């Protein structure tokens, strides 16, 4: 505590001029970072945590303005000229971003991009820089760096791109690294690798890290000190262990409690099987034009059998590309597949569109993206009742409206808002609308495809509660697809772990969580649930 801060932020304000007037994104915050320290800034979307660091890096959007003071080793950063600021950013303070897919220039080789800060800050020759870049790539764990140095960003995976960003950030031995949600866009096991890498590099190189995140699990394992932000203000700060054990501010408590809790009891043994897939297989053909070579086949779902009982929730977990969404769609017959699919005992594998239509009412789907899956030109009343018009066309308009009111109340929305348009609602509210759209048809089976993944933790919890309430009230069966194990644990009574189109492990939720047998499941669990600090387990994922 006696050490001098390298970064001192005092009464920092950030404002954006918008068509709806001035938006005050950051409202006078104080923040200190000491040498070699890891500081986390935690908050939900819109809390101003990213804009704080954007302001001190001079990266605010053109309509943004910063006020107050932020000094780096005595040098005021706010209002500093571009030329002087460029001597600090990329040299003393570097940054990695949330979007590994787009943060690198797609048109240039990664070697050249990592070399740029070396060439421009250190005056290194391209050749010397190249040597250093290969060293850096080695350091961040890119295999075969001497060859990969000439790769283009699109030839690398998301995790590798984030490693490249880290290499670029380390190029000039920075004093401080700002990591803005560096793992949010990545799969859990990749997340763990990136975090372990950052922890290890910090131990080796000794720079300070400012970690911006909404994920408290990461904070607990990674940070020395925490700032909790909400509505542009710091509501609480302190040592990580103290803050987690004895939170003082109600919002911090709320955040800490936001981890979905509770368990779902399995349905009675005699519960009938509602939806069953046997040896379901989905193969996507790749390419196949006049001039191209032989078709490359991708086996997205490889002979999977599942049986969903009445009142049951099966959690399907796995990383992106494991085939979990494809399985969900195949079971709803939204994709052509091989194998048998039975609904209430009847074989629907061969049913065409027309034959499926009456069953669609019973088999509903809720998507991940609450922004893209609602038509922006329909009021939510129209969105919610659209399915009724198809499945119960004889229903008079007044009755439809009554059902809409009923279902909106049930999902916790004010029915008076049903003449508004989707853009007027928050992410969580939109997901409620999407759920209402499925529920109004009184379905028996609902496939929930990552319904909480795009939402903040506290909102996730509310949606999980809502889904559980609805299940209890209507005796629904869920197929719950998610990569988020905390949510799956709270939702499902049976778990299926998928990898590369196959089931690697399945069983009752508690058994899977407490005694995972397969290495892959163990890795998934370790990445998501494990509470041990990263510093002690750095290397565990290599």
């Amino acid at each position, binding site marked *: 505590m006696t050490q001098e801060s390298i970064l001192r932020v005092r009464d920092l304000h950030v404002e954006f001029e918008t068509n709806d007037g001035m938006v005050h994104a950051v409202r006078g915050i104080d923040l200190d970072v000491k040498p070699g320290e890891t500081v986390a800034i935690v908050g939900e979307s819109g809390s101003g945590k990213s804009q704080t660091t954007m302001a001190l890096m001079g990266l605010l959007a053109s309509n943004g303005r910063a006020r107050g003071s932020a000094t780096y080793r005595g040098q005021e950063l706010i209002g500093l000229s571009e030329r002087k600021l460029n001597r600090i950013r990329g040299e003393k303070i570097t940054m990695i971003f949330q979007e590994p897919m787009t943060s690198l220039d*797609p048109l240039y080789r990664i070697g050249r991009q990592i070399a740029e800060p070396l060439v421009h800050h250190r005056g290194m020759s391209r050749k010397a820089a190249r040597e250093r870049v290969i060293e850096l790539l080695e350091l961040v764990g890119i295999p075969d760096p001497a060859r990969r140095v000439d790769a283009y960003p699109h030839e690398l995976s998301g995790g590798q791109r984030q490693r490249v960003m880290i290499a670029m950030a380390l190029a000039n031995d920075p004093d401080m690294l700002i990591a803005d949600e560096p793992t949010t866009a990545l799969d859990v096991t990749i997340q763990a690798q990136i975090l372990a890498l950052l922890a290890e590099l910090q131990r080796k190189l000794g720079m300070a890290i400012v970690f911006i995140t909404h994920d408290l699990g990461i904070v607990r394992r990674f940070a020395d000190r925490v700032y909790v932000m909400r509505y542009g203000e710091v509501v609480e700060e302190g040592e990580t262990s103290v803050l987690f054990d004895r939170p003082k501010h109600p919002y911090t408590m709320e955040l800490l409690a936001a981890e979905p809790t509770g368990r779902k009891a399995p349905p009675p043994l005699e519960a009938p099987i509602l939806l069953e897939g046997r040896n379901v297989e989905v193969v996507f053909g790749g390419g196949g034009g006049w001039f191209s070579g032989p078709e490359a086949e991708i086996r997205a779902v490889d002979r999977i059998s599942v049986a969903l009982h009445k009142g049951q929730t099966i959690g399907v977990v796995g990383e992106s590309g494991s085939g979990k969404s494809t399985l969900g769609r195949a079971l709803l017959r939204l994709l052509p597949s091989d194998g048998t699919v039975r609904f209430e005992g009847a074989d629907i594998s061969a049913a065409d569109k027309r034959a499926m239509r009456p069953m669609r009412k019973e088999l509903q789907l809720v998507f991940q993206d609450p922004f893209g899956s609602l038509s922006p030109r329909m009021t939510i009343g129209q969105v919610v009742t659209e399915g009724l018009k198809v499945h119960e066309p004889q229903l008079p308009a007044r009755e439809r409206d009554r059902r809409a009111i009923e279902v909106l109340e049930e999902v916790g929305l004010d029915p008076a808002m049903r003449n508004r348009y989707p853009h007027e609602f928050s992410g969580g509210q939109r997901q409620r609308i999407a759920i209402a759209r499925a529920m109004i048809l009184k379905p028996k089976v609902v496939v929930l495809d990552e319904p909480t993944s795009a939402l903040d933790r506290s909102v996730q919890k509310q949606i999980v509660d809502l889904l559980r309430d609805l299940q209890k009230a209507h005796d629904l069966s869920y197929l719950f697809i998610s990569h988020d194990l905390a949510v799956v644990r709270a939702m499902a009574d049976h778990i299926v772990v998928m990898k590369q189109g196959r089931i690697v492990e399945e069983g009752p939720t508690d058994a899977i969580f407490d005694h995972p047998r397969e290495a892959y499941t163990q890795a998934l669990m370790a990445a998501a649930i494990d509470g041990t600090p990263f510093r002690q387990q750095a290397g565990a994922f290599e």
Partner: protein
Amino acid sequence: MFAYVLRRFAGAVPTLFIIVTIAFFMIRLAPGGPFDLERPLDPLIMKNLERAYNFDKPLWQQYLIYLGNLAQGDLGPSFTRRDFSVVDLFRTGLPVSIQLGGIALSIALVVGVFLGALAALRQNTWVDYMVVGTATFGITIPTFVIAPVFSLFFGVMMGWLPAGGWGTWQHMVLPIATLALPQIAIIARLTRGATIEALRSNHVRTARAYGLPSYVVVGVHALRAAILPVVSYLGPTAAALLTGSVVVETIFGIPGIGRYFVQGALGRDYTLVMGTVVVIACFVIVFNLVVDVLYAWLDPRVRYD
């Protein structure tokens, strides 16, 4: 890449064949013929003419004869300009059109990209408003208005430049300006939009976050991305400009090939129309290929194999 180019050329042959076939029969569907004059010709002369030009044969035979000649690079005789073959006409006219169109295109590209990028970098300042305003103006006013106004004002009233004709560089200024102006406007707008988008992109933010000097941020990272839509636009535009403009060539009296299409169609000069179709089709095919190759070179994500 080389294999790709070869494949594209191989693909061009059937494309060209289809275009020629459709054009051949379409022009023949039009009523009248090349020898229908105000005062009808003597039937005997008419018959001799028809025999000389194979018009007495069935249409499908004429088509095959045309294809056979075309394969040997013979576009046939012109019907309205009796002393010339179509190839002769293009041999004298095409260089003029290419020269005019090529210079106009180069100017449009340089000025358009410069203005567009400048407007994007000074977004929402008077510079931006000037460029966008002028560009909108340039797109709205058609060449058949610009050309006579230029000719009248600079040529007749001011007497600074020749109002029409061909020969010296002074003759080229007004037609080139007329051709380039709308293209400058379109390219400037395209560049501006793409640059603004590129400047907001995450990788440009990365470049700024790493303290790279602004000439690198803009010149290396933003502009290369911004130039891509312009490159796509250039393919068909280059083909159109280099094969001459009917309006500009007619108003300024320039001996290019742009006039031939309309004149040939009106005079039922079958071979001239067909020749123009073949030349324009070839230009379009070649320039689309050039653009695709250029695009792949600029954007490594695009791969042809």
